[in-house]
């Protein structure tokens, strides 16, 4: 019997287990390892601070999404011994593998920034990228009486790069609805040179921040949080004061990757961006946030990668050349507040543009424009996630590589 082992039962790992369990040759077994019991719908974390989703709506048990003929091991992972083709578990057990898929994702690491992870963490400094962070921030916002709200990105890359922008927009709506918008100053602080960095998006969406009275501090590379004086300080000496700091801390791959000795400086695994084979060893493949490929770290990217990786795993087993097919395709709803959202569709070489999706010329969703329909799409997506996406079912009309039909590409260079 040969053995395929998947590390991580989050969005990517669960999708791969569902794709592969009935496609592997008969002499292959499939094992998946995760330390946690709970599968979180991570896009839902954004809505928890504003009481739009209840915490129980974004969590289910991992077990219910793993097919019966897949072995599920609940254990933390110590490291991969790539030379011995073995996974060493924290519980002392060792798993031999013939083929390995790393799907261990990315985590926030507030301790990377001086003063962030100190006595004010989850008191006046919050994240919303964890279940606990989102819940604690909800409790804070329920009683907060206003002041300076700073929404902040520590450094790139981060999971779902648009989430902090969505948070700012939803905060504007939230405080208007609570009839206290005049008591809140919202500032968006980013290490990039603007909230929007691509030409088309800047042109189409530049109005949003001004319309919502959100000020922006660009090119801010944080050195430390001065929590005693309620301000963040950048390496150039710039300072921004806050009463409530909502930050996206440094994102890093799992420490397991570092212990295995093959991560980059942020613990992401060097990966071929078209085949998803690792550059570590030919029998190790990588998917989702765990890779270092220049695509967005987002569930939608993992979804498109999963379809191509499934093909490539089967080709590898069969001794055929791998398909160099992954094009960096991402498709994301972006909440803009007041019951509206945007939709963007892009890949490695094509920036987000205007147009219709998924049916060319028809829609019903419109790209790079605010609409209520897009917002309904975002809310409907939670059902699609639990019932189709992580179960590996194909979503109609949406292909794993990006389609150019229905897109206004005339001014865009590849």
């Amino acid at each position, binding site marked *: 019997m040969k053995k395929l082992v998947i590390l991580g039962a989050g969005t990517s790992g669960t999708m791969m287990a569902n794709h592969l369990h009935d496609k592997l040759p008969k002499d292959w077994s499939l094992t998946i390892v995760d330390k946690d019991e709970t599968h979180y719908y991570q896009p839902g974390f954004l809505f928890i601070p504003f009481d739009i989703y209840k915490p129980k709506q974004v969590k289910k048990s991992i077990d219910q999404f793993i097919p019966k003929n897949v072995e599920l091991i609940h254990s933390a992972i110590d490291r991969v011994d790539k030379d011995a083709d073995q996974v060493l578990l924290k519980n002392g057990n060792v798993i031999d593998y013939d083929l390995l898929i790393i799907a261990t994702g990315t985590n926030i690491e507030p301790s990377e920034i001086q003063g962030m992870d100190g006595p004010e963490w989850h008191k006046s400094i919050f994240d919303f990228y964890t279940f606990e962070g989102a819940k604690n921030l909800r409790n804070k916002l329920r009683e907060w009486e206003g002041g300076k709200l700073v929404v902040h990105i520590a*450094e*790139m*890359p981060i999971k779902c*790069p*648009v989430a902090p922008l969505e948070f700012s927009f939803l905060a504007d709506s939230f405080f208007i609805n609570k009839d206290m918008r005049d008591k809140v100053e919202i500032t968006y602080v980013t*290490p*990039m*040179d603007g909230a*929007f*960095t*691509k*030409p088309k*998006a800047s042109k189409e*969406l530049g109005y949003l921040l001004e319309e919502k009275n959100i000020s922006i501090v660009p*090119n801010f*590379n944080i*050195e430390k949080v001065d929590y005693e004086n309620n301000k963040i300080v950048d*390496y*150039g000496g710039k300072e921004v004061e806050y009463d409530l700091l909502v930050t996206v801390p*440094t994102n890093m791959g799992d420490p397991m990757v570092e212990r295995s000795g093959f991560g*980059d*400086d*942020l613990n992401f695994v060097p990966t071929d*961006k078209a085949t998803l084979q690792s550059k570590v060893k030919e029998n190790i493949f990588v998917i989702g946030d765990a890779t*270092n490929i*220049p695509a*967005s770290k987002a569930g939608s990217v993992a979804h498109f990668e999963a379809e191509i990786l499934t093909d490539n795993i089967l080709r590898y087993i069969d001794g055929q050349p791998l398909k160099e097919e992954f094009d960096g395709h*991402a498709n*994301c709803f*972006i909440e803009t507040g007041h019951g509206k959202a945007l939709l*963007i569709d*892009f890949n490695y070489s094509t*920036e*987000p543009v205007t147009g219709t999706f998924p049916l060319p010329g028809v829609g019903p969703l419109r790209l790079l424009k605010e609409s209520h329909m897009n917002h309904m799409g975002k809310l409907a997506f939670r059902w699609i996630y639990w019932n189709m996406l992580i179960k590996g079912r194909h979503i109609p009309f949406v292909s794993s590589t990006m389609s150019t039909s229905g897109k206004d590409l005339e001014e865009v*260079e590849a």
Partner: protein
Amino acid sequence: MGDKVYAGINCNVDDNGYLTDFNQWNKEVGAAIAQEEGIDMTDDHWKVVDYIQTQYKNEVPLTIRKIGKSGVVDIKTFYALFPDGPLKKASRISGIPKPVSCI
């Protein structure tokens, strides 16, 4: 999109003044772009440019952290060499695209 002459070479640049064809870059072009940014290039500047270009050629995404850990320069010095938006300015002088996010 447009053309701009740096050090006697006709270069293609994007709306933000970044070269769109790395092959058009040479040290004189880099120095001329640096002048526009108000920077007089020294050996320390060129060491950073050399590091950035090597990373770019290997398709390794650049971050301030990565440059700080490179052994070429620490983050404070990087700021001192390329004040106010060091990664942006150093990328432009190195002839590589502006660092961007997904939108």
